[in-house]
């Protein structure tokens, strides 16, 4: 919304007025965020209006992240809404979301910046011809070099730099939400690379110097699935939020927010079933995302109430391993009955 307004103003003829107005508008959004992030209950309500139901712990994490300007490291099993949290935060604050997906072998050229080597090369070739003009009249080697020095390091200026997610996030004028997803998938070295940006909101580029965040530093979320231990140095710089599987009550509210069409009785049944399932010894436990998918499936099938056959047919929505499905198969009837009775 803010963006559109600014574009309109750009087209306006009166430059003086334009600049004044823009300040007002920008100021407006900033106070909005301030108000929203001013208390935990505000945040919780805000999340809820964006269909993200969260515990007070999660809201507190966002509150602290905003107030203390600290990144949040979010851990928890897959599918509990770690990435969703960052997305919703961006949506709620009406800030752009910049996402960096981590993987093995990710390095600074892909995460922070890269020189536009093609452009650099092209320009060198083009400028070769003009070199003679520049050096005209220069006597001796020293003088030629000195003349060249007058041009400075043009090739290593921002013109030739390709910003990657981390640098982009720092360059956002009004702040943004930066999501560094699955940081545990990256290498150890990459973690150390993150340290500077996480604690100081700046990156050092040897050729240019230090790039600091613009007025508003980004709100940073890091997510991890715990495939490996994150280094202490990184943890130390972050708030640490652990999102466990939700309890039955919370999960029902989540389903209600996400799949509002589903009848309350069925909702209760399917949540109870999933909760029971999580107590079993499975390779991959069903997470919230699976519950939501299942709710949608059941809705699609016009289900009124769970029954063993239906569960058996739709089990592949919630369980992702054939082995798990086989294991659960024997207990479906008991579990379903439990879910219906409760």
């Amino acid at each position: 919304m803010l963006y559109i307004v600014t574009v309109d103003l750009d087209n306006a003829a009166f430059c003086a007025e334009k600049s004044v107005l823009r300040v007002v508008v920008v100021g407006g959004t900033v106070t909005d965020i301030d108000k929203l992030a001013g208390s935990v209950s505000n945040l919780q309500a805000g999340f809820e209006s964006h269909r993200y139901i969260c515990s007070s712990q999660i809201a507190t994490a966002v509150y602290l992240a905003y107030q203390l300007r600290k990144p949040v490291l979010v851990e928890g099993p897959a599918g509990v809404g770690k990435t969703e949290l960052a997305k919703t935060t961006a949506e709620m604050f009406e800030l752009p979301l910049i996402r960096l997906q981590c993987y093995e072998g990710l390095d600074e050229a892909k995460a922070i910046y890269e020189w536009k080597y093609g452009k650099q090369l092209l320009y060198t070739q083009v400028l070769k011809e003009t070199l003679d003009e520049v050096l005209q009249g220069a006597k001796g080697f020293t003088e030629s070099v000195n003349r060249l020095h007058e041009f400075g390091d043009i090739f290593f200026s921002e013109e030739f730099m390709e910003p990657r997610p981390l640098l982009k996030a720092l360059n956002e004028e009004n702040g943004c939400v930066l999501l560094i997803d699955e940081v545990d998938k990256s290498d150890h070295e990459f973690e150390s690379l993150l340290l500077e940006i996480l604690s100081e909101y700046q990156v050092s580029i040897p050729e240019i110097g230090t790039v600091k965040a613009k007025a508003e530093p980004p709100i940073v979320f890091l997510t991890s699935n715990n495939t490996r231990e994150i280094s202490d140095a990184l943890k130390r710089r972050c708030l640490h939020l652990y999102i466990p599987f939700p309890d039955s009550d919370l999960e029902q509210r989540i389903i209600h927010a996400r799949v509002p069409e589903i009848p309350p009785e069925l909702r209760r049944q399917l949540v109870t079933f999933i909760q029971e399932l999580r107590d079993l010894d499975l390779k991959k436990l069903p997470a919230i995302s699976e519950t939501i998918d299942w709710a949608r499936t059941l809705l699609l099938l016009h289900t009124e109430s769970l029954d063993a056959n239906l569960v058996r047919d739709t089990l592949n929505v919630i369980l992702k391993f054939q082995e798990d499905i086989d294991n659960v198969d024997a207990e479906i009837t008991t579990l379903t009955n439990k879910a219906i009775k409760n």
Partner: protein
Amino acid sequence: MDRTLTSFIAALRNADVRISTAETLDAMSAVELCGYRNREFLKDTLALVLPKTPDEKYTFDETFDQFFAFEDVKGESVVTVSDGDGEEAEGEGGAGQGQGGAEGEGTEGRKGGGKKKKFSAFEEQQDEEDLGPGEMAQPRSTLGKLLMQDSRVELTVNMAAAAKEVSLEEIQVFTQKGLYTRKIMEEMGLADLQQEISVVRQSPSIPDRRLGQELKKRREWLREQVRDYVEKQFLLHADATGKKLREELLRKVKLSNVEHRNFRLVQEVVFRMAKRLVALHSRRKKVFKRGQLHVSRTLRHNMSYDGSIFDLHWKSVKIDRPKVFAICDVSGSVANYARFMLMFLYSLEEVMPKVRSFAFSSDLAEVTDLFERNKLEDAIAKTLRDYSGGSTDYGQAFEDFRNKCLDEIDNRTTIIILGDARNNYGDPRTEILKEMYDRSKRLIWLNPESRNTWNVGDAEMRKYSAYVHQAEECNSLTHLERIVGNLLRTIQ
């Protein structure tokens, strides 16, 4: 207020939650923001700043509840106020009037209700002399006044102050609990109270005697409270040196002698050792001289050569990491060693992701799957449960191994065999071991027995040791650490 926070952090550290100075500072600024007013909010806040693993969060929860228990006391008294029954309030109302009319009728009644609950435990002592309800004399000693005031909050504050005075946080061993309880009581003015009680109990006036009874009851109650408080503080502050000492010992003790109750501790030690090894060995990164051309990097580096490609750079491809096959004898005598060895190997997952493990006593079976699916402790327990029966037969185990996966052994594979080589006089089948030896990069035999018993009785170590690259005695955590450390050095 900062002092509260730092002592809370000290308590957390004591409970094995690692908190750095930077995090302490973070906690302070966070607390400045959220304040101490709302307990839940405070807990949420600190839970985000201080503990950094799920385990630590759990410890944090417990420690927090213990440490900030005062809040609970307040809450409790509020609850008792609301459900104080009318009848009791009436009965005690008279006593309240005797206490001096400074406070309103309503508060007196409510206090009575609260009192009833608190002192119910001591009700049975009342049998000595039934004086009935009625007027009661004023207490004179400070502690007496405090006790009769019925303000738990004030009492608790007083108790904490006294505890600080006698430096309760220095308590070290549990035998000191009684001592500290007494010290705190004395600090709070026990002597005066005793004096008063004995005086008023002798007194001819009935209100005085009533006071004496009441004071005695409350003194006992206070003692209970103080003892409770000391207990909690002991748990929070008791020095961890005892634990350190035990850990130190555990590293050296023979693994088969580790008692069951110490398993958890051993596991912690193992994890810590493993973590150190991981830190030591994960830093290495080779730049490989083949693979895919890293176009952008090559071009960038060759800009200085006028764009002619001259200095090539490659996408550093990691060669698939070395494989480790662990074959563990899990029969009775060696089971304990197997437990720790598996624990160690799987704790090293980060640097040795491809551990395949096999367990046998008579028949051999692969247990890699178990470890993938279950938590480490569970997997180990299941392995030992399922495979430890039967008498040891190394020949059969090797035979099984050959059938199962000899083909998968190549020159990057390291095989570790853990066992005492006691074959019950069966056929040792050394030819299979030789085959394994020839195919693998390294074959290491870890024997939990000490070297001089290796060839005694039915042990076949002499025959086997011809076909291993390395045979080591391995029966304590220190041994294990050294061997695995060497292993990591050679396989990378």
